C-alpha cells in the first residue's frame, strides 16, 4: 500500500518536473510577475505546513485573548468603549474573587498569555477596589464620549486595571502583542491568529478538492475520449446533467445530503460537494485533448505493438495531457477557496473551524458598527493567496496551454 502511494507520488512528481522542464515553461520562468506569484504561493504553503506542525493550534484560534471588538494596532478607542473594556476585565477578576476557592479560580483566568497578578488575594482585592472607585465615579457621567475632560481619568483607570495582571516578559509579551495586533472579534478572539489559521483550512480545501476533482475528471474524460462508444455517451450525459444545475445550487443540494449525518461537523461534506461539482471542468478539457492525442502516431505505434489499451491510456496518453491537468488544478484551487466563503456565508459551509468564510460572514454586523478589522484581515490574507494564484494560473496557462482563450 505504502509502496503504491509512493510510486504514485513519484509519478506525479516526475510529470510535474517534465512540465517544468518543457519549452513552453521557459516563458513562465522569464516572467518576473509569475515568479513572484509562485514565491507568494510558496510562502503561504510554508505557513500552512508550519500551522500543520503546530505554529498556531486550533485551541489558540478559539481562545479569548482580550475584550471583544478591540481594534488593531492599539488604535485608540472612544472613551465609552475603553470603559467597557476595563469593566470586562474587572468583572472577570471580581467573579473569581467571589468563588469559594479563590486562588484556583484566579489561576484559571487567562486572556491569551495574560494571567492575574501573582499577589496575595488581599492585595489583589485592594487593586480591584482602586479600579472600582474610579469606575463608579465615571459611571455617573452619561456619555463619556462627549466629555473630553474625563479622558485623563479613563486613562488612569486603565492604568490601574493593568495592575490586575501579571506583567508579561520576553516572548510572552511579544506573543500577546502579536495576538492583539489586528484586534479581536466579538468573542474576544485574536483576529490575526484566526486569519492565519484559516490559511491551513483554505489550503486543505483547495488541495483536496483540486486533486480529487482533477483525478476524477481526467480519468472519466480520458476514458470517454479514448474508448468512445457508450462510455463516451455516458460521461457526456453525466457532465451535461450536472452542469445543467447552477453550481451554487448543486453545491447547496449536495451539502443538504449530509445534513444530520455524523460527518456534518467535519469538512467532508464540503470536499464531497465540491469534488462532485468541480470534476466537470477537467473532464471536458481532458476529453477534448485525448480525442486529439489518440490520433497521434505514437499511440498508434503502441497499439500496433500490441500494448493493452488501458496501459496505453495510462502510460502514453494521460502523461501527454498532464499540462492541462496542472492548469485545471490551479483553476479549481482558486474556485474551491472562493466557493468556501460563499457556502459558509449561506450557512452551508465550514462550521467549526476558523475559516475566512466564517470570519467574513461574522463581520457583517461589525461592519454596520464601523468595525472593519475582521473583514479587513480575512479579506487581505485571502486576497494575497487568490491574487497570487490568479496570476500564477494565467502564466501557467500562457506557458502550457497557449491556444486557450481566457
Amino acid at each position, binding site marked *: 500500500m505504502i509502496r503504491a502511494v509512493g510510486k504514485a507520488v513519484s509519478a506525479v512528481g516526475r510529470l510535474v518536473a517534465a512540465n517544468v522542464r518543457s519549452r513552453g515553461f521557459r516563458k513562465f520562468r522569464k516572467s518576473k510577475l509569475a515568479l513572484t506569484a509562485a514565491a507568494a504561493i510558496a510562502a503561504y504553503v510554508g505557513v500552512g505546513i508550519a500551522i500543520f506542525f503546530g505554529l498556531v493550534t486550533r485551541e489558540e484560534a478559539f481562545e479569548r485573548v482580550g475584550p471583544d471588538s478591540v481594534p488593531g494596532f492599539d488604535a485608540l478607542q472612544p472613551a465609552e468603549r475603553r470603559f467597557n473594556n476595563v469593566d470586562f476585565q474587572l468583572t472577570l477578576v471580581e467573579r473569581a474573587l467571589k468563588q469559594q476557592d479563590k486562588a484556583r479560580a484566579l489561576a484559571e483566568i487567562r486572556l491569551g498569555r495574560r494571567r492575574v497578578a501573582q499577589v496575595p488575594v488581599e492585595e489583589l482585592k485592594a487593586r480591584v477596589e482602586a479600579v472600582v472607585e474610579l469606575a463608579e465615579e465615571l459611571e455617573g457621567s452619561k456619555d463619556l464620549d462627549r466629555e473630553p475632560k474625563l479622558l485623563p481619568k479613563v486613562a488612569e483607570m486603565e492604568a490601574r486595571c493593568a495592575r490586575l495582571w501579571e506583567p508579561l516578559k520576553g516572548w510572552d509579551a511579544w506573543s500577546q502583542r502579536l495576538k492583539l495586533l489586528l484586534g479581536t472579534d466579538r468573542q474576544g478572539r485574536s483576529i490575526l491568529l484566526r486569519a492565519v489559521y484559516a490559511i491551513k483550512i483554505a489550503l486543505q480545501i483547495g488541495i483536496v478538492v483540486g486533486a480529487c476533482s482533477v483525478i476524477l475528471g481526467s480519468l472519466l474524460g480520458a476514458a470517454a475520449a479514448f474508448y468512445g462508444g457508450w462510455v463516451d455517451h455516458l460521461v457526456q450525459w453525466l457532465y451535461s446533467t450536472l452542469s445543467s444545475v447552477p453550481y451554487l*445550487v448543486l453545491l447547496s443540494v449536495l451539502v443538504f445530503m449530509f*445534513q444530520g449525518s455524523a460527518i456534518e461537523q467535519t469538512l467532508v461534506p464540503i470536499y464531497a460537494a465540491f469534488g462532485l461539482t468541480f470534476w466537470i471542468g477537467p473532464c471536458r478539457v481532458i476529453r477534448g485533448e485525448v480525442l486529439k492525442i489518440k490520433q497521434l502516431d505514437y499511440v498508434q505505434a503502441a497499439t500496433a505493438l500490441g500494448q493493452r489499451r488501458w496501459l496505453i491510456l495510462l502510460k502514453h496518453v494521460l502523461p501527454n495531457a498532464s499540462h492541462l491537468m496542472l492548469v485545471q488544478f490551479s483553476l479549481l484551487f482558486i474556485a474551491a477557496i472562493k466557493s468556501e466563503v460563499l457556502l459558509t456565508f449561506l450557512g452551508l459551509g465550514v462550521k467549526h473551524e476558523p475559516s475566512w468564510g466564517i470570519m467574513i460572514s461574522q463581520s457583517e454586523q461589525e461592519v454596520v458598527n464601523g468595525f472593519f478589522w475582521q473583514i479587513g484581515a480575512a479579506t487581505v490574507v485571502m486576497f494575497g493567496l487568490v491574487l497570487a494564484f490568479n496570476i500564477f494560473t494565467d502564466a501557467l496557462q500562457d506557458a502550457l496551454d497557449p491556444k486557450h482563450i481566457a
Partner: protein
Amino acid sequence: MWQYVLRKLLWNIPVYLGILLVVMLALRVNDPVWVRLGKNATQEDYDRERKDLGLDEPFLKQYGKLLWGFDLERQSWDKPGRSVGKELSQAVWPSLWIALPAFVLTTLVALGIALVAAFRRGHALDRWLMAGAVVGMSISYVVYIILGQYFGAYKLKEWTGAEIFAIQGYDTKRAFWWVHFCALPVLINVALAIGYDSRFYRAVVVEEATRDHVRTARAKGLGERRVWLRHVLRNALIPVITHVMITLPFLVAGEILVEVFFNIPGMGRTLITAILGKDFPMVQGFTAVFAAIFIITNILTDVLYALVDPRVRLS
C-alpha cells in the same frame, strides 16, 4: 436549421431526466424525514410525515410526479398551507427584477471595457484595466456585498440624508420601489461579475482582431473605425453570444447571495431558506425548476448561436 434545433432539444431530454434523477437521489441519500424530525421522533410521526410527502410511493411514481409539473401541488414543510407552486410563482418576480437588469448591464459594461482594452491592446490602459480585473476577481463576492451595503445603503444615507437605497427588504407598493430595493443589489451583482466577464470578452475580441481577414481589411486600406466595427466587433459577437452562457452560473450565484443578504424574497433566498430549514418538498421542487430554467436558456443560446453562425448547423 430546424434539424439542428430539434437535435439540441432531443439531446437535452435525457439531460433533464438525468437532473431530476440526480436531485431525487441526492435528497434521498439521507432520509429527509428523519433529518427533519430529528432522532427523537416516534415511528408513527415518521410514518405519517412520510405518507404526507408521498415518500412511501414507489420511486418511479415519485419520479413521474416530479417530471410532470415539478410536483408543485406538494405542501411546503415550513409554511403549512402553502404549496411549492405558490411559493415559486411569488419568488420568480423578485429574482427576475434583479437578474435580468444585472445580466444586461454586466454584459454591456464588460463588453465595453473589453473593447476599450482590446483596442488599446498592449498599452498602459489595457494593462491597468486587466490588472484591475484580476484584482477584482481576487476579492470574495461576500466582501463586495457587505461593503456594498455599508457604503451604498448606510453611508449614502448619512451623506445625502435621504434613503435612496434600502438596507434590505422588498416591497413593490412603494414609490420607485425598483430603485429603492433592487438597484443596489443589481449594481453589486454587476461588480461581482465584471472582472471575470471583461477579461473573457477581451480575450475573445483580441483573438478576433488578430485574424487574417482583419489584416486583409487593413491592407485594403479600410479605416480603423470600419475595421473595428465591421470586421472585428461583428465577428466577435458570435463567441460573445454563445459564451454569455458561461456567465450564467455566476449570475445565479451572485443572485442567490444578494437575495439572501438583502432579504429579497426571490428564488435564491427561498431555496437557501428551504435547505437550512430542511424543507424537503421545497428543495426538490426548486432545484428541479432551477435546472429546467437553466436548460431552456441553454437551448435558447444554442439556437441563437445557430442563427448568427451558419457554420454551427453543420456540426
